[in-house]
């Protein structure tokens, strides 16, 4: 099959996935028995007040029409207004999304190369002491909740030693060094879990390639080890490694939600948790759509890059 048509097909699939995600987000928040009007009113819900709110929010209309209206606004870039305080969500989220992107980008920039290198080291010397060290320590790390690492880091570096702030306040921060100080703990905490998952999966992906028959052939022919890894194994391993990186973005998203809340970091992860607490449905919907679409788009990008990187796809028979 032509590589271009494969890419077009994947793009179509990506758009379809985002659509399904939007249906799930909408159905999850609005059609499940928890009634929006009751959620807003809480204890003070009387039938009249409920009817009043339902009319104001257009909740008396059938669900599929409400979905289409919501989707239409979403596509036009209008995220709606918060139920909790009536704020325009575009402003609230726009203010914070940069911070979350910064946190995620810095974490990825540190964690991705490090974990790929760790995975490569472990996979090229399977069952050696260094492999066992990397495998066991990463296994222990993925078993540990991200907030344990965060709690340990805060108690050590912020409370006992007093070197770094425990709260990530970005308001009065300027200059690179200040940013680095504020971001140091959240980024480190996030990197640990993401790195552990990524290093393990990189190891098994590369090991998979290294035990394949073409590589075995190369070993039997007496090709030097560095040449096997660089020329024979790596081109075939790039695609699985990229997939591993994309898959781990899910851990990054979970991590962002937890770590932002832990450090009071002004990003959309914490905003979403606050939205869930106050049952601010439009806010949760908007944040969920942003997180999920990012995840789908990044996975799609990884998919396409690994297609292009895969020699077998690039040079079809």
């Amino acid at each position, binding site marked *: 099959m032509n590589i271009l048509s494969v890419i077009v097909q994947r793009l179509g699939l990506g758009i379809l*996935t985002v659509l*399904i*995600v939007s249906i*799930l*987000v909408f159905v*999850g*928040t*609005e059609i*499940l*028995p*928890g009634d929006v009007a009751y959620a807003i009113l809480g204890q003070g819900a009387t039938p009249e007040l409920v009817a009043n709110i339902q009319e104001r929010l257009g909740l008396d209309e059938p669900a599929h029409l409400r979905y289409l209206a919501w989707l239409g606004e979403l596509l036009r870039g209008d995220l709606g207004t918060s139920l909790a305080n009536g704020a325009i969500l575009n402003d609230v989220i726009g203010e914070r999304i940069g911070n979350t992107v910064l946190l995620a980008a810095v974490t990825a920039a540190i964690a991705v190369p490090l974990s790929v290198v760790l995975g490569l080291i472990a996979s090229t010397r399977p069952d050696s002491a260094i492999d066992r060290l990397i495998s*066991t320590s990463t*296994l*222990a790390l*993925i*078993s*540990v*909740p*991200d*907030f*344990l690492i965060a*709690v*340990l880091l*805060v*108690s050590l570096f912020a*409370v*006992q030693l007093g070197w770094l702030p*425990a709260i990530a306040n970005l308001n009065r921060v300027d200059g690179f060094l200040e940013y680095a100080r504020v971001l140091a703990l959240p980024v480190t905490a996030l990197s640990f879990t993401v790195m552990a998952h990524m290093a393990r999966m990189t190891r*098994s992906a590369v090991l998979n390639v290294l035990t394949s028959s073409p590589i075995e052939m190369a070993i039997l022919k007496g090709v030097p080890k560095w040449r096997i890894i660089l020329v024979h194994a790596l081109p075939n391993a790039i695609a699985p490694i990229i997939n591993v990186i994309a898959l781990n973005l*899910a851990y990054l*998203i*979970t991590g962002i*939600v*937890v770590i932002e*809340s*832990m450090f009071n970091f002004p990003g959309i992860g914490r905003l*979403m*948790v606050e*939205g*869930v*607490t106050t*049952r*601010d*449905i439009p806010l*949760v*919907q908007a944040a*969920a759509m942003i*997180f*999920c679409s990012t*995840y*789908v788009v990044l*996975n799609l990008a990884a998919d396409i890059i690994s297609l292009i990187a895969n020699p077998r796809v690039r040079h079809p028979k």
Partner: protein
Amino acid sequence: MVERVVMSLREARRDLTPTATLCLLIICLILLAAILAPFLAPHREGEILTTGSFMSPGEGLFLGSDYLGRDLFSRLFYGLRLTVVVSLTIALLAFLVGCSLGFLAAVLGGRFDMLISRLVDALIAFPAIMLALIVITALGPSIPVLVVTIAFIDSTRVFRVARALGVDIVVQDYVEAATVRGERFGWLMWHEILPNALVPLAAEFGIRFTYAILFISALSFLGLGVQPPQADLGVLIRENMQGLLYGTFTPLYPALCIAAITISINLLVDWYLRRNDAASPEDLQ
């Protein structure tokens, strides 16, 4: 049957490495502590013993007091109990649903398999935490809602593993022989597929259990899981976070409890897979 189980247990004991033994010991202790919590805990769960919050250990308070002056050591027992019970229920439920649907898809194939597999693909395209947050927004965080939601999310992963195992087994000669013999469908699932999928499934159960522990603890830590006055380990960390700023280690104890269970289970699963020379269930997805 009993003899076979005893035999295989004896063989397993022979293969135990020191690490695996330690992990097994920790898991047994934790399960025992969870079951016997009301008898082992020196004080009642909600009993306020002193007026001092975050007091250092001593005077009958083995790990000091929590933010309300309650005995942290006793609260750990009860928190552990709730975490273990909730997570076990989640893992069992996820297994029940995921395994039956997975095997069913493998055996039936065709449109049924297609339909469920695509549905699972769509659900996995969703970061799990987002799905949980959405449902909690709509229904509020009560324990039944949390259990069903997390079990549902987990069952998609179990489905993939069970289906992959089932598909491999269904094409084996012995299954074909049984089909030709005219065995019924339920018999096939129970006597042919399940026993042959047992090793990876046992490993997967361990992984799902730790996953459920981590997930429910994270939600409780965020204030979106178990709600006070009930307290699981995640709640214990959340409510005592302030103590960190006073220089005590109060929130570290429940966090370390979680880590002890999850690390032990994962290392044990790792040992189990190596011993049986089986692939990790994660690779089956």
